[in-house]
């Protein structure tokens, strides 16, 4: 049993990162994905905030799973998720007000991020704490990576910087549309295209299966 745990946990983790990447395969959580990914820092912060909420909620849901009557389970999940969103909201205010302003209402909107409710309902409520947390961490990592993929491309093209560091010198004319809402759709479309092209080429066979399943 113990010998099996390590690789199985790893598979469970990678499931969220790759095979069922919430952003590029399941196409969930589009609202923050399009709205806050104007810079790599914002994208990473949003990813980390979601990671915290997702992991803690899944842990608590999993711990309480035998106490929660199924009739009121959704209400309970929402209360639990909202609690951790509030915690993260305070934490970000304490860390940096500038970041808090940049992320705006999208921190509070983590409550309605369907990745989190989906994980709580589909996985955490049926599994013991450890697998639930591993699954949540995998999904969070996949979501954070996805946001970072969007945010870094948009920042590089739209502002010529990455993490605020200028990449191309003063003569670069920023491609401003990439920072505007349409740019979010362009970059998201490009990433989705890339992922499905990978799948079709057979380079990412697992992704193809997952795409067909979803």
């Amino acid at each position, binding site marked *: 049993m113990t010998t099996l745990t390590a690789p199985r946990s790893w598979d469970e983790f990678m499931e969220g990162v790759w095979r069922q990447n919430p952003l590029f395969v399941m196409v969930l959580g589009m609202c923050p994905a399009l709205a806050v990914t104007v810079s790599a820092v914002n994208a990473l912060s949003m990813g980390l905030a979601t990671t915290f909420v997702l992991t803690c909620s899944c842990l608590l849901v999993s711990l309480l799973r035998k106490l929660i009557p199924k*009739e009121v389970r959704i*209400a309970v999940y929402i*209360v639990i998720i909202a609690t951790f969103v509030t915690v993260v909201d*305070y934490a970000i205010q304490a860390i940096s007000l500038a970041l808090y302003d940049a992320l705006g209402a999208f921190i509070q909107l983590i409550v309605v991020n369907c990745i989190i409710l989906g994980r709580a309902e589909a996985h955490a409520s049926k599994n013991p704490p450890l697998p639930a947390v591993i699954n949540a961490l995998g999904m969070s990592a996949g979501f954070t990576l996805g946001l970072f993929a969007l945010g870094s491309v948009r920042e590089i093209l739209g502002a010529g910087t990455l993490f605020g560091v200028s990449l191309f010198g003063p003569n670069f004319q920023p491609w401003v549309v990439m920072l505007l809402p349409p740019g979010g759709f362009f970059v998201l479309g490009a990433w989705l295209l890339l992922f499905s092209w990978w799948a079709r080429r057979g380079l990412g066979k697992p992704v193809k299966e997952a795409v067909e399943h979803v």
Partner: protein
Amino acid sequence: MSGETRQPAAMAATQGTPTAAMIKALGLVSAICGLIIVGAYQSTFDAVAANKRIATERAVFKVIPAARSIAEFVALPTGTVEKLGAGGTANSANNAVPGAIRFFAAYDEGGQLAGIAAEGAAKGYADTVRIMFGYSPACQCVVGIGVVSMRETPGIGDKIITDKAFLANFTALDTRLNADLGALAHEVKAVKHGAKTQPWQVDAIAGATITSRAVGKAINDSAQLLLPRLVPNIDKLGKS
């Protein structure tokens, strides 16, 4: 590993749960969540308050470069000014007299009044543009602006932060009061790029006229209300 123990629970659930059990579960979850939230609020309270204070100070210091310390005041509709307690934000919420305008007095190294900073807001291209402006009682003019929040188009509207020619409008923008101290002698107004002829006009950025106008209007609206109350009482701001 817990598959066996879960089975009965799942079966019980399909037969319906008694109301008391539901209330118990909801109560328990709410209690746990309440504790977590209170814990988080308590542990971050000081850091959040400090952050807010630093952010305000930075915004004031930016528009009045000589400033070294600030104090918060309100200008009441009755025409008097009142200093807010050291409690700062919490206090100002309690003192929310309708029509009161909040402003900051900034003092230089020697504790002398270096200027006044106040906020103004007006509708821009995408959303409300909120700015902070510095007012110098010595020249009766606006001596600097900073943006508090805005959602203007990157690369176009947000030039109001970086455009040097535009910011040069606010090194000595005339905001003198008229003879009876009831209003500004001349309305602060943004004019088309290159059309500025008077010291109370704001030369708009070409291509960002709407945002530039919002800045002019924000200063005008705020100064029209604040300065008539403030100028007669300027001595009361005193030293830090």
